[in-house]
């Protein structure tokens, strides 16, 4: 749920990066953290297990700039991708304004992608959030790997509602900012409609 504070002149929205384990959600946030000036972002907080897997969530506050004098701030969250952390994923979706689904392009991860999208839809249903109207971007990550499924085949399997698709190699930053821009655009346009 976005927050608007006319006194402080700020608008804050929450974006969640969702997807299967080891798909590159945290890598997206790390790249954004490393390539944004410290004045435009806060600390990247990560709650990891010893094996560097996300345990609970990562969060990165980002100042995008101003529109009509209002500071536009986004809080970027990731969820833990591993199947058994379902309860944590649900908690983090609370109040979400936009979702980036980070799919793993490797053929052996296709089932995990599909399972994770179904898990996302089920979790949204439990909050009575409409997936149909939720700002949503699909990122096809790890496009550089030799076992990557062709993009068209992935789109056929994973695109649900005609959402924008961005091809990415998050570890090298390819497609990361494009994905962020796409979701930011959708969230702001969605909020504009909500205000009417």
């Amino acid at each position, binding site marked *: 749920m976005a*927050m608007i504070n006319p006194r402080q002149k700020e608008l804050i929205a929450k974006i969640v990066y969702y997807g299967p384990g080891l798909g590159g959600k945290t890598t997206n946030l790390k790249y954004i953290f490393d390539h944004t000036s410290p004045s435009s972002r806060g600390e990247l907080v990560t709650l990891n297990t010893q094996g560097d897997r996300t345990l609970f969530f990562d969060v990165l506050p980002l100042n995008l700039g101003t529109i009509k004098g209002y500071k536009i701030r986004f809080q970027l969250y990731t969820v833990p991708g591993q199947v058994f952390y379902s309860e944590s994923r649900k908690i983090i979706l609370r109040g979400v304004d936009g979702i980036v689904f980070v799919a793993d392009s490797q053929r052996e991860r296709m089932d995990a992608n599909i399972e994770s999208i179904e898990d996302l839809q089920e979790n949204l249903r439990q909050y009575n959030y409409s997936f149909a109207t939720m700002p949503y971007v699909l990122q096809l990550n790890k496009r550089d790997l030799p076992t990557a499924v062709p993009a068209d085949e992935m789109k056929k399997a994973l695109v649900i509602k005609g959402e924008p698709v961005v091809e990415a190699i998050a570890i090298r930053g390819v497609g990361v900012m494009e994905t962020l821009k796409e979701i930011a655009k959708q969230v702001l346009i969605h909020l504009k409609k909500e205000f009417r």
Partner: protein
Amino acid sequence: MSFLVLYSEEYEEIKNILMNLKQETNSRIALIVEKNGQPIAFAGEMDGVDTTSLGSLVAGNVAATEGLARMLGEKSFPLMFNEGSRENLHITMIGDRFILAVLFDKKTSLGLVRLRAKNAALKLERVFSKLEEKMKKEKDKLGTGENPLEDLSEEDIDKLFK
């Protein structure tokens, strides 16, 4: 409704309640966080404190504790206390949507913080109910005659990313 508007009048009321709580208890920081991790307002010295990270961790902590409560057959654990060697953190629920966190050191006592935080939470609950009522009624949702997103264009969004 997919947003929360903090109207100036209620925002000031909230800030005043927090400021009083901070002063009465001689604590370092009093902070309100929405359960989704969004920091709403604070009183105290916030220099060097990343409010977003603090907010998300407090909310995460509350969410995890709620999960624990459900597992143990409790409806909730509305009060939490973390004791450190220098700093302590006291967390109280404000209704079922907001969280009041008070950070304090040895200059004050847990008993005093607990008592005052409970009273402040009741006052804050009333202000937030008022805020929700107002959001339902208000036609100009910001109450200022201005809407930052009214004429939002693709160009505005492109500018954010230059």
